[in-house]
């Protein structure tokens, strides 16, 4: 075999891989658009806030995906819906505004696609980040104390300080990263209908 012929075959094979998957995939899911909800004049999926978008990056950098997935499967052959991880399965349109778009491939902990709907109280999410066992004693999730700051307590605690005791007259206050992460987790919900995945 001539080297040039081998080179041509390899290049064609590699291009076939990219074009076959990414280009065809782009034609299929890359052109999807959000659906307008005429009652609320909002879009489905809803666009996340700027803080939530920052939170997506915190979520990625803290490695939450090493234990949590972001993809609910349908009823065929999986118990995702029965476990209450979402009201319906995830579809490509759900990821339109996700930047970076992540799905995760591990489930040491629960799927988080609908966590914003499951845990509505932001303080509960914040407490989970600080000390997961406070919220659920059986939780195996590691705490993230580095997302919180210790500040000297004044005559009155700051509004968002955590309801935990800290030594030396200090209070535990969530950092910007913690607030962003909680905003992101709250933005994760599948409680809206899509033409290809209606709510039942």
């Amino acid at each position: 075999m001539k080297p040039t012929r081998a080179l041509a075959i390899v290049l064609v094979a590699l291009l076939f891989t990219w074009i076959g998957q990414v280009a065809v995939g782009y034609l299929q899911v890359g052109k999807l658009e959000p659906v307008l909800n005429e009652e609320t004049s909002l879009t489905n999926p809803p666009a996340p806030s700027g803080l939530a978008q920052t939170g997506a990056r915190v979520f990625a950098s803290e490695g939450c995906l090493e234990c949590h997935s972001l993809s609910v499967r349908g009823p065929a052959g999986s118990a995702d819906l029965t476990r209450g991880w979402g009201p319906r399965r995830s579809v490509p349109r759900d990821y339109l505004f996700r930047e970076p778009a992540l799905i995760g491939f591990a489930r040491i902990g629960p799927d988080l696609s609908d966590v914003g709907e499951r845990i509505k109280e932001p303080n509960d999410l914040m407490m989970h980040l600080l000390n997961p066992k406070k919220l659920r004693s059986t939780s195996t999730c590691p705490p993230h104390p580095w997302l919180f700051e210790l500040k000297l307590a004044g005559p009155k605690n700051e509004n968002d300080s955590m309801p935990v005791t800290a030594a030396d007259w200090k209070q535990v206050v969530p950092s910007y990263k913690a607030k962003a992460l909680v905003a992101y987790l709250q933005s994760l919900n599948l409680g809206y209908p899509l033409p290809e995945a209606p709510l039942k």
Partner: protein
Amino acid sequence: MNRSQSSKSAVATQILIAGSIIWSLLGGGLQILANLQLLIPMLAYFQPTAVFGYGRLVPAATFLLTYGWIGSGLLGVLMILVPRFSGIPFRHNHVLTFGAIAWQLAILTGLTQILMTGGSGLLSLPFGRTVTLILLVSFLVLGTGITRGLGGTWKSGPILPRLYLLGGILAFPLGLGTAELLLRGGTAPGGVQIITQLVWHSFVHHLWLTPMALVLLFQLLPTLTGRPTTSLSLGLLSWGLFFTLGGWASNSLASQGPVPSWLQSAGVVAGVLLFVAALGNTVLFQPLLEGKMDEIRRNVALRFLSLGAWSYLVAYGWMMFLSIPGVRQNTAFTVAWNANQSVFLFSFLGSILAGSIYALLPVVRNLGWPSHSSLLWHFWCTALGVALTFSGYALGGVLQGLALNDPGVPLSTVASYLCPFLVVIIAGQALWIVGQLAFSSLLIATLLKLFPSTAPMAVFPSSRTSGADLAPVRH
């Protein structure tokens, strides 16, 4: 080949191989730390910083083992091998040394980024843009050097190693460049980003690392056994299957969700056909090793290469098994996929890398290996360690999957099911590190020329009855 040219390019080779061993020890250590936290979640409550958090240790360890240990090591041994089978020496050796240093710098920068500021969360692309850039520049230098060694005409010499090498060398920059552009260039919308991550994951494993390892198998097994490969057409068929379908295999990682179902089906088909290709290559390797048991026992390079050749089949067999839709429903999102990673990285690629270093490094350094007991420690710790890690992940993953699909089992109970398997996995990983320590002690002694032996290849003594047998055998 001119001896001074050879010794100059050996600097780049030695940097790559020494770096590879350091990253393997560090990566293995981080992996154990991560699994310890999974086994004893309370440990996480004692660390005040994010650096050693589970979410950072796992991507850091995977990055070190993939790009640092295997990537760097395979490039290093290929730089020894390729000029020798083509007879074309490297030129501009200082540039190659720069490339080798740049690769280590990229790994160090990537590790620091992941541990200090966190990974990107992207599959097989956990590092930042800076690291991508350094990796691309370094690979451009090293890849160009190695490609020169392929020669302008292929009228003589081996065809299959050259074909795999050409494919592997083209796949890395093409894949990395495109993935970087689509994932961080803001050009791909959400769903396409997920497809792109899966394609890049396939590129790294099946179009870059596997072909580089196959180059070594196709070149070294016939050389060490003195037997030629029997069927070129079967080899070409397997090569064609690999490069046509290798980039599709990781789609089977997704189970429903945002990846279009036709792509998931294509992933299953690719998984099955890649196993067929692996079977085709194994059919070519098997006659080379048949009836050579004594030699495999004696020759440590051949021993590791044989382990790598059989692990190759097991790795692709296990991947195919996990891709089957009925199995995938249960094993998606479980640690059963880590079993695939452990047999793929530690047994298949790792054994071929070790075997190649044992076979080739003495050629460059004109030295043998000093300690028979360290060779034995390396082999048995690696083999047993990988066997324990693989079985722990595989059994634990299947049980985890069955429990996850039973809504009556609480999630905390599912996690507790994994504990006994984690003990086995950690024991396996610790054994593997002991083996790597034995190997690194040998390697340091070889690189520093701490002993006077001149055997060109590491060989076990045929009889172990006398102390004299412990000296390396001269060829």
